[in-house]
């Protein structure tokens, strides 16, 4: 197998080529080139990646065929500041090491939200610092634990807008902020910290339900209007974009409206965080895969578990980090995906497109020995 060129090496090579090219230009020609480049990048909706000098290349998704590729994910690290809790920090570092060891490297890494535990600036800064160690570019998604202290101010300052879309190798990607809640805090006179702590409690019934919300659904409508109907769509949302278990917000209140917007595309995949467990669902044309957490696993909810879900083995509390992990998603030529759950201390499990598309008839992953109580 050919040795891969690391993202870092490629980055320096591109950078050097750029500067060498620039040496041949006078000031006027340089301005012309750079303005044209910036204009073109802005027009195509390119985002300048915070961890890279090089704008992420924007492939044309005009209904062309999908070039198979893989992206990795890390999610739900729930960092406290390092002095308070070293465990969650070490677990996120472990995930970064896992992803950096992938050969070939993934095209990019999705961070699935809940980088911080209580939305503190120190927690988000620490997370941003750790994620800079990833060799592949990072795509950020926000979670409720990052949001409800300052309603996104610090997160945006670090990572940019929380809602965006991009095209990659023939797939249209959409990143949503699906953890909006109706205002429960003003009437109660809560401080920002009280609001944050209320939302941070999964089983805290004082908070509202998650929703994508009207403005963002309007944005989504307009974003998707530009995309040809044959293009595969992959949506990243922190909460599952369907209704699994309301008391724990394993739930999106306006899920049906969002699903309806995605109906005209033949192949749609939703990759979501928040549930900290192996979770699989299919609603019509939409395949759903939950992501693992690096911090702790959630138990399966007492009701509402989608039938296609291949449960992970009941985590053993005596086995440090059991039930936690990270994963990778391979996009197939048809535009559907195989999800690989890299459970730490266990064999990795693949939930393939064939399994989900066949409604569980084909390619079924192994069943767990110890199921949830």
């Amino acid at each position, binding site marked *: 197998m050919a040795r891969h060129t690391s993202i870092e090496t490629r980055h320096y090579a591109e950078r050097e080529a750029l500067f060498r090219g620039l040496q041949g230009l006078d000031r006027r020609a340089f301005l012309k080139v750079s303005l044209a480049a910036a204009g073109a990048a802005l027009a195509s909706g390119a985002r300048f990646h915070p961890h890279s000098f090089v704008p992420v290349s924007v492939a044309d998704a005009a209904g062309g065929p999908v070039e198979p590729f893989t992206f990795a994910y890390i999610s739900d690290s729930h960092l406290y500041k390092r002095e308070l809790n070293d465990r969650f920090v070490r677990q996120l570092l472990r995930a970064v090491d896992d992803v950096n060891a992938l050969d070939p490297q993934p095209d990019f890494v999705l961070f699935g939200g809940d980088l911080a535990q209580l939305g503190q600036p120190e927690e988000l800064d620490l997370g941003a610092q750790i994620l800079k160690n990833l060799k592949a570019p990072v795509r950020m998604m926000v979670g409720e634990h990052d949001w409800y202290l300052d309603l996104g101010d610090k997160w945006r300052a670090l990572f940019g807008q929380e809602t965006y879309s991009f095209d990659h190798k023939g797939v249209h990607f959409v990143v949503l902020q699906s953890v909006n809640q109706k205002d429960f805090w003003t009437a109660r006179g809560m401080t920002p910290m009280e609001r944050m702590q209320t939302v941070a409690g999964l*089983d805290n019934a004082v908070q509202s339900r998650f929703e994508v919300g009207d403005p963002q659904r309007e944005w989504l409508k307009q974003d998707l209007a530009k995309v040809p109907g044959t293009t595969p769509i992959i949506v990243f949302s922190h909460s599952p974009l369907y209704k699994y278990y309301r008391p724990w917000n394993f739930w999106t209140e306006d899920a049906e409206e969002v699903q309806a917007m995605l109906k005209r595309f033949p192949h749609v995949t939703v990759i979501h965080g928040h549930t900290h467990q192996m979770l699989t669902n299919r609603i019509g044309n939409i395949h759903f895969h939950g992501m693992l957490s690096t911090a702790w696993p959630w138990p399966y909810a007492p009701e509402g578990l989608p039938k296609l879900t291949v449960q992970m083995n009941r985590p053993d*509390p005596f086995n440090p980090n059991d039930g936690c992990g990270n994963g990778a998603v391979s996009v197939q030529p048809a535009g559907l995906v195989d999800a690989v759950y890299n459970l730490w201390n266990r064999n990795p499990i693949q939930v393939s497109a064939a399994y989900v598309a066949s409604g569980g008839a084909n390619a079924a992953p192994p069943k767990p020995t110890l199921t949830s109580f």
Partner: protein
Amino acid sequence: MSRTTLLLGATALAVAAGLLSTRWAGHAGAQGTTVVTLCDNETKTTVPDSQAKTREEGQAIADALMSQWRQKNPDRDWIEGELEKHTIAKPADNSALVGRGQGQTYGQITEPDVQKWSRESLAMAANGSAVFHNAEQLGSTIAVSCDMCHPSAANTHPETYPKFQVQLGRVALLRDMINWCIEHPVRGTPLAPDDPKMRALEAYIYAQRKGTPLDYGRR
């Protein structure tokens, strides 16, 4: 007016106000006044003797005392607050027993009896819920609380204990596992078996599995 008359007067006022359930007492204050004391024996108010002793007046005095007491005890409604945040299964309803004899000298089971049983049981589970959801109360050194892995006490399976815990090499009770979690994932100090927090945690965890058949030894 003599002291005796005053006491009687105060008692009469209490009866008139229908406040028998709020036990209180009055005694002579300065000349021409009565000091009314709440059942905590600390919260007091002074009422002039000239005040009319109607039901409304009595209620107003009682309300003033209760509001004073609530200000001193802002956490009085902690059970309500806890129940608003965290759903707790209600204890068994024993109201069908009201009016039936107990088969011995205590006489019939009354509505207040049944209410008290229910209230006290729920209060203990609610206390457990408060500890369960609070890293500080659990003594965690890394800000980890039980609900972070066990929302609504899910996956605590108290019905499976006692059982042989392979990892410990001996039979474990629920409280052994609670202490294991306090020591390891929570990084705190284990509780004594009769520590009020341990008793409350057990109460909450059992309450959440209400209706699940016992199946001790289940892996």
